[in-house]
């Protein structure tokens, strides 16, 4: 295929840690195949070449946290034929969405020496709150093979094979004994979206919910089970309020309260 016929790829960053973009760079062997199939038109993290849009496929990392972001995401959408969000920040607001539960003014006064210079929104919100998203890839960070699956599916013009059921199903496909049942270890697997291959339960740890809520997550029943395993409301809240705190099913678990940020000297 001659290079000007290749679909173009753009990778965008909003409020995020860059971990998901790094997952793309981490693809090593497959990265060459990706570069062979797609023209990498805009990817500041990887290259200084910044071709103008429109782009065929945009991967968007990060959440919307500033007035500037609000405008920029509209421009990204206008310039993208197919827009895929990558990671927990872009799909649910990320860890930075803990601000949504508190008072941003107060938080800024704690964190910054001169808060007057900071222009920020009261909330950190997912991309889908602002523009239409064609596919959301979950994870904090995303899984390498899932990213390649999404790109491969895009190139082949088919649906990506990305399950939206629970982590428990992956856990059982691996033959793991359940850590909740066998050890009483709190595990968010039953309400968490698959994708990690049940990484933590495979190492005898409870699931932290990195991939956000599974389809039809029954958080009320999950909270009752965590309580029955001896977890108090504070602990339950800390468990749910991490990378996907602002996703709807996790948001109100168990009660919305200010994040545990303490003033330091």
């Amino acid at each position: 295929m001659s290079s000007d016929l290749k679909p173009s790829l753009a990778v965008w960053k909003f409020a995020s840690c860059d971990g998901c973009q790094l997952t793309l760079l981490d693809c090593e062997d497959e990265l060459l195949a990706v570069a062979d199939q797609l023209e990498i038109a805009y990817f500041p993290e990887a290259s200084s070449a910044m071709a103008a849009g429109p782009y065929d496929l945009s991967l968007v990392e990060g959440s919307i946290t500033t007035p500037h972001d609000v405008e920029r995401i509209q421009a990204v959408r206008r310039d993208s034929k197919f827009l895929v969000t990558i990671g927990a920040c872009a799909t649910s607001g990320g860890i930075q969405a803990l601000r949504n539960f508190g008072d941003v003014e107060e938080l800024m006064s704690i964190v910054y020496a001169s808060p007057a210079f900071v222009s920020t929104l009261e909330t950190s919100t997912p991309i889908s709150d602002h523009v239409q998203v064609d596919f959301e890839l979950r994870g904090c960070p995303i899984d390498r093979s899932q990213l390649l699956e999404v790109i491969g599916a895009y190139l082949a013009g088919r649906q990506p094979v990305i399950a939206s059921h629970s982590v428990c199903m992956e856990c059982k496909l691996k033959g793991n004994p359940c850590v909740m049942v066998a050890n009483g270890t709190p595990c968010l697997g039953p309400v968490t979206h698959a994708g990690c291959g049940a990484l933590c339960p495979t190492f005898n740890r409870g699931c932290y919910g990195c991939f956000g809520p599974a389809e039809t997550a029954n958080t009320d029943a999950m909270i009752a089970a965590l309580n029955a395993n001896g977890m108090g409301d504070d602990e339950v809240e800390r468990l749910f309020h991490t990378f996907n705190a602002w996703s709807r099913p996790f948001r109100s678990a168990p009660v919305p309260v200010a994040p545990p940020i303490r003033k330091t000297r």
Partner: protein
Amino acid sequence: MEGLNTVGLVEVLTLDGLDDVVRVLRDQGRKVIGPIVRDGVITHDEFDSVSELPHGWTEDQDGGRYRLVPTGTDEVFGFSSPSTSWKRYLYPERTLLIRARRDNGTVEVVQPQPDAPAVAFFGIRSCDLVALGILDRVFLDREATDPTYAARRSDVFIVAAACNRPGKTCFCASMDTGPTPRSGFDLSVRELHGDGRHEFLVEAGSERGTELLATIASRRATTADLDTAQALHGRAAASMGRRMDPQDPPLAALDPDHPRWDDVANRCLACGNCTMVCPTCFCNATEDSTNLTGTEAERWRVWDSCFSIDFSHLHGGSVRSTVKSRYRQWLLHKLVTWHDQFDVSGCVGCGRCITWCPVGIDLTAEITALATPQQSAGRKGVPS
């Protein structure tokens, strides 16, 4: 006498004799798979000698709870159903169905030969043995035979083991599927333990079982041995923690508007653990994948569950979008419509779905409540 197949040889072996059985099976080139302790549970894996079996371990199983507990004895089979069922050895979690390659405009499709290692199942319980019979009906005794299952199933050597210590979630006695294996084995072992003795009453259930047993140093079983085994069977059958009516209620008796459906839907996480651990659940999804350059494609069969949304996704969406409809599908298929489809219940009473449900939902309790007529509360205020 319960479970004794008088056609075959019945012998009494020592622990060393039992180890000889394992050795002979291994010498036949078989992978011998049996119960072992790992990650705080009794599961299955390949093992070399009976010393690796869960000597002195039993488990405390209840709804959503499993803990290993020492028996304080040297019993080898002092536990009940292991955490995993045996279906994965015959019907693997993931199976490659076809592989296709595109080259210069031609597409070559290859169907891989099913990989069928020679294995022996050692210590399979009566409930799980009955479950294999059910999977046989599903995968073999139909118009289409499943090639992977058929290849893996054809030559499995089965050493069954009776349960002396059923768990709190066991109910094979009421389902008439245990605790002593009745048929479908090459050898069946009953551990004779107590009063200072530790021996194994071994019965052959096939010609190759008889041949193998004849090569092991043993003594002929006496009436006293058979009486001991029978007494152990009676004690085990009387100590099941759960029970269920094997005459599962007819579909018409299960009111679709019974308030219990909403009640269980509120508790159910739709996580799928129950179907994954069930020895008879066989549903799967077909996954197609392609490589980045579009030159290779693969089709895989992967275990799926009626608790996932995609499972009932037809054009336009899932026909079972609520957890209530998914729990209902599972319970009704398992206990009611399975009879119409396969002429047998889909439940063998192993209790795994109760133990391994993270919130301890118990089908024996659900079906009892659902079969008890109650005024429907309708959909009032309950998300379904």
